C-alpha cells in the first residue's frame, strides 16, 4: 500500500505537468488549471495519507523498484525510501506547491506563458518529490539537478527580460559549483563503500572512517569527513549558504509564486534535507559538523544584515530566506537535525506566506516592487495586511507562532552545544534574531503603515485565488507548531530516519508540553531581543522616519559594504568569472580556432588539395605521355625484377 501511495504521490504532478506542457496551449487555461492542480492535489492527499500511515506504524519503507544500470559489481537502482523525514517533506512540498498553484491562477492570469508556468511548477514538484523520496545517491542527484533545472527555467521565465536571463544563468552557474562538490562527495562514498544506496553507505561507515586522505604533506582527513564536507558543499550551493549565496537574491527576478515555492519553501531547503538525511555520516565527523555550524551561523547573521538596506520588497524577503536557511544549517551543525527540519517546515509555511503576500502587494500596485514608493496600504489590502503580519510575527519568532517554537528550539540547541565554533554561532544567531525582527518590521511598516501614497488611492484587494492561499498558509504559520513541536523536535518522530543524540543532550531542556516550552522561552533572551528589534523598527520607520534620511549615513564605510553585499559579487565577477573567461578565451582562440579549426579541420583539407594540385600537373591528357609512363613503369619493374632476382642463366 505504501508503494502504491508513494508512486501516485510522486507521479501525479509529473503527469499533470506533462499534460499541461503538451496540450495546455491548445486546450486553454481551465484545462491547464485542472490538470496541474488535480495532479498536485492528488499528490498532496496521498502524501498526507502516507505521512499518517508512516507516523502510526513508524515503519520504514525502503524498496528498489527498478534496476537502472547493472555493470559488473555495481548496480544502480531506482528506489523509494519512505520514512518520517520523507513523509513530512512530501507533505510540506505538496502543500506549498498546491497553494502556489492556486495562487498562480490569479497572479499570472494575463501572462502569455500561462500554461508553461503551470507545467514548470508541476514538474518542479515532481523533481522535488523524487529528490526527497529517493533511497540512493544517484536518484538524489537526479532530483537535485532536476530542481536546479526547473529553478533555472523559472527564474528566466520572462526570458525577454535581460536581468532575468542573467539571474538564471548566475543561479545555474553558482549551483554548478555546489553540484560539483556534491558529486565528488557521492564519488568518495561510492568508491569506498561500492554502493550508492543510503543503507549500505550508512552501514559501512567503519570503512569510511578508516580510510584517510592525505591533503598536504602533513594534513590528513578521513574519507568520512571529506565526503561530509563535500556533500555539504552541494548543500551550500542549493541552500545558498555563504559564500555560494549570491544567486538567491538575484533569483527574485522570476515571478513571485516561484520565489515562494522554489526559492523560499522547498528547493532551497534541499540542502538542509540532505544534511539531515546524511545525519548518520555527519554524526561521526565532528569537524564536518563544526564546518556546517560555522557556515550556517555566518550566513544567518551576515545575509540578514544585508536585508536591512534592500529596497526591493522581494529582495528583503530573499535575504530573510538566506538568513533563515543559515539558522537551519547551523542547527544541523549542532546535531539538532530535528529542530532544523522543524524550522524548515514552519519556515516553508510562513516564508511562502510572506512571499505570496508580497506578490499580492505587487499585483495590487501593478508590479511596483520598490518599498520606498509604498506606504499606508493597511486599509487598502486588509487580508494581505493581516496575513503579512502573521507571517512577519512567525518569522521573528513571536511567542505562540509556529516560527517561535522552531527558532527558539533551534537557538536553544546552538546555545547548549559545545563544539568548535558554537560560541561564535550562538552570538551570531542571537544577533540574527534582532536583525530579523528589524528588517521584517521595517518592510512591514514601510509597506503597510506610514504615509499613504496618493497614486495608490485606487488600489484594490487581490482576487480570491490570491487571498485564499494566503489565508490557508496563515493557518499553519500560526498553529502548526502547537501539536507538532513535541513529537518532532523533542520526541522520537524522526527516530526512524535521523541519527541524533537524544533531546536532552541537544537542548539541555526537559520538554513537557508546548505551553511549557512557551513559558520556558521567557527565560531565554531570544524573545526580548526580537521585541527590541521590532521596537527599533517602529522607532526608525514610524516615529522618526527622517532619522535615517541623513545623508551622512549613506556615505559611511559600513553602508557602502552592505550596499555592495560584502563585495561578493565583485569578487566573483572580477576574479573567478574573469579568470574563467580568460581561460575560455584562450582555449577558444588557441585550442579551437588555431589547433582544431586551423590545423585539423581546414589544415587537412587544405593539405590534401595542395598535394592534389601538384600531382594534377602530371595528368596532361596526351596519349603519348601516358604511353611513355607505361613504358617507363614497365622498364622500372623489369629492371627491379632483374636486379633483385638476378639473371637466370
Amino acid at each position, binding site marked *: 500500500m505504501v508503494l502504491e501511495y508513494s508512486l501516485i504521490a510522486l507521479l501525479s504532478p509529473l503527469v499533470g505537468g506533462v499534460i499541461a506542457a503538451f496540450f495546455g496551449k491548445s486546450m486553454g487555461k481551465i484545462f491547464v488549471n485542472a490538470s496541474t492542480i488535480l495532479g498536485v492535489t492528488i499528490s498532496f492527499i496521498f502524501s498526507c495519507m502516507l505521512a499518517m500511515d508512516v507516523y502510526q506504524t513508524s515503519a520504514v519503507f525502503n524498496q528498489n523498484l527498478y534496476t537502472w544500470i547493472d555493470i559488473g559489481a555495481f548496480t544502480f537502482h531506482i528506489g523509494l525510501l519512505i520514512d518520517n523525514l520523507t513523509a513530512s517533506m512530501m507533505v510540506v512540498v505538496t502543500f506549498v506547491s498546491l497553494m502556489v498553484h492556486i495562487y498562480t491562477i490569479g497572479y499570472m492570469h494575463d501572462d502569455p506563458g500561462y500554461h508553461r508556468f503551470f507545467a514548470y511548477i508541476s514538474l518542479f514538484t515532481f523533481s522535488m518529490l523524487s529528490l526527497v523520496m529517493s533511497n540512493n545517491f544517484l536518484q538524489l542527484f537526479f532530483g537535485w539537478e532536476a530542481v536546479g533545472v526547473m529553478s533555472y527555467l523559472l527564474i528566466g521565465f520572462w526570458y525577454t527580460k535581460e536581468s532575468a536571463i542573467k539571474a538564471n544563468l548566475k543561479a545555474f552557474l553558482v549551483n554548478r559549483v555546489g553540484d560539483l562538490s556534491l558529486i565528488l562527495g557521492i564519488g568518495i562514498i561510492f568508491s569506498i563503500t561500492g554502493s550508492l544506496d543510503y543503507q549500505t553507505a550508512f552501514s559501512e561507515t567503519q570503512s569510511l572512517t578508516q580510510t584517510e586522505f592525505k591533503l598536504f604533506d602533513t594534513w590528513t582527513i578521513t574519507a568520512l569527513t571529506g565526503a561530509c564536507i563535500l556533500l555539504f558543499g552541494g548543500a551550500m550551493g542549493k541552500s545558498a549558504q555563504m559564500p555560494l549565496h549570491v544567486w538567491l537574491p538575484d533569483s527574485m527576478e522570476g515571478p513571485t509564486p516561484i520565489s515562494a515555492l522554489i526559492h523560499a519553501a522547498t528547493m532551497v531547503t534541499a540542502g538542509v534535507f540532505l544534511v539531515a538525511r546524511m545525519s548518520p555520516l555527519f554524526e561521526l565527523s565532528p569537524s564536518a559538523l563544526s564546518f556546517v555550524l560555522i557556515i550556517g551561523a555566518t550566513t544567518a547573521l551576515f545575509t540578514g544584515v544585508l536585508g536591512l538596506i534592500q529596497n526591493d520588497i522581494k529582495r528583503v524577503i530573499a535575504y530573510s530566506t538566506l538568513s533563515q536557511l543559515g539558522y537551519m544549517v547551523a542547527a544541523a551543525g549542532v546535531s539538532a537535525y530535528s529542530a532544523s527540519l522543524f524550522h524548515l517546515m514552519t519556515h516553508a509555511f510562513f516564508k511562502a506566506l510572506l512571499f505570496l503576500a508580497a506578490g499580492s502587494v505587487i499585483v495590487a500596485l501593478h508590479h511596483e516592487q520598490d518599498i520606498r514608493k509604498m506606504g499606508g496600504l493597511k486599509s487598502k489590502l486588509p487580508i494581505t495586511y493581516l496575513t503579512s503580519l502573521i507571517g512577519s510575527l512567525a518569522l521573528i519568532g513571536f511567542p505562540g507562532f509556529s516560527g517561535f517554537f522552531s527558532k527558539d528550539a533551534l537557538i536553544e540547541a546552538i546555545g547548549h552545544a559545545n563544539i568548535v565554533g558554537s560560541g561564535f554561532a550562538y552570538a551570531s544567531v542571537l544577533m540574527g534574531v534582532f536583525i530579523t525582527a528589524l528588517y521584517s518590521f521595517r518592510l512591514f511598516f514601510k509597506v503597510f503603515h506610514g504615509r499613504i501614497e496618493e497614486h495608490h488611492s485606487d488600489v484594490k484587494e487581490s482576487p480570491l485565488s490570491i487571498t485564499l492561499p494566503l489565508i490557508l498558509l496563515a493557518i499553519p504559520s500560526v498553529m502548526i507548531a502547537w501539536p507538532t513541536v513535541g513529537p518532532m523536535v523533542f520526541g522520537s518522530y524522526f527516530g526512524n530516519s535521523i541519527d541524533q543524540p537524544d533531546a536532552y543532550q541537544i537542548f539541555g531542556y526537559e520538554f513537557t508540553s508546548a505551553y511549557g516550552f512557551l513559558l520556558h522561552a521567557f527565560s531565554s533572551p531570544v524573545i526580548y531581543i526580537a521585541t527590541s528589534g521590532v521596537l527599533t523598527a517602529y522607532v526608525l520607520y514610524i516615529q522618526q522616519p527622517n532619522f535615517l534620511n541623513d545623508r551622512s549615513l549613506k556615505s559611511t564605510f559600513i553602508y557602502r559594504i552592505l550596499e555592495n553585499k560584502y563585495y561578493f559579487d565583485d569578487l566573483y565577477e572580477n576574479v573567478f568569472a574573469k579568470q574563467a573567461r580568460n581561460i575560455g578565451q584562450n582555449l577558444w582562440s588557441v585550442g579551437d580556432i588555431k589547433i582544431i579549426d586551423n590545423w585539423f579541420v581546414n589544415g587537412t583539407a587544405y593539405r590534401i588539395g595542395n598535394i592534389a594540385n601538384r600531382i594534377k600537373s602530371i595528368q596532361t591528357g596526351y*596519349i603519348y605521355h601516358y604511353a611513355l609512363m607505361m613504358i617507363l613503369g614497365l622498364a622500372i619493374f623489369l629492371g627491379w625484377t632483374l636486379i633483385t632476382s638476378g639473371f637466370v642463366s
Partner: protein
Amino acid sequence: MLTLQSYLTLSAIVFSIGITGIVINRKNIIIVMMCTELLLISVNFNFIAFSHFLNDLSGQVFVFFILTVAAAEAAIGLAILVALYRNKKSISVSELNKLRN
C-alpha cells in the same frame, strides 16, 4: 646457321622501334596503332624463336592467341579512330588531350 640470339636481337630492335614510335610520334594516331602492332609482332617473334629452339609447341600456340587479340584490337582501334575523326576532324596525337579533366 641462325642462332637464337639473332632472332632475339631482331625482336628487340623491332620492339624498340615500336616503343620509339609510340613515344615520340606527335603526328598521326595511325602510326601509334602501327607501332602497337610492331610491339606485338616482336613479342610473337620471341615466342616463335623460343618455341623453335626449345622444341616446345606451346609457344606457337600462344602466338595464335596473340594474333587474334591483335586483330581484334586493331579493328576496335580503327573503329575508335573513325569515330574520333568524325568528331574532331583530326587524328593528330598532339591535339588529343581529352583524357585530361
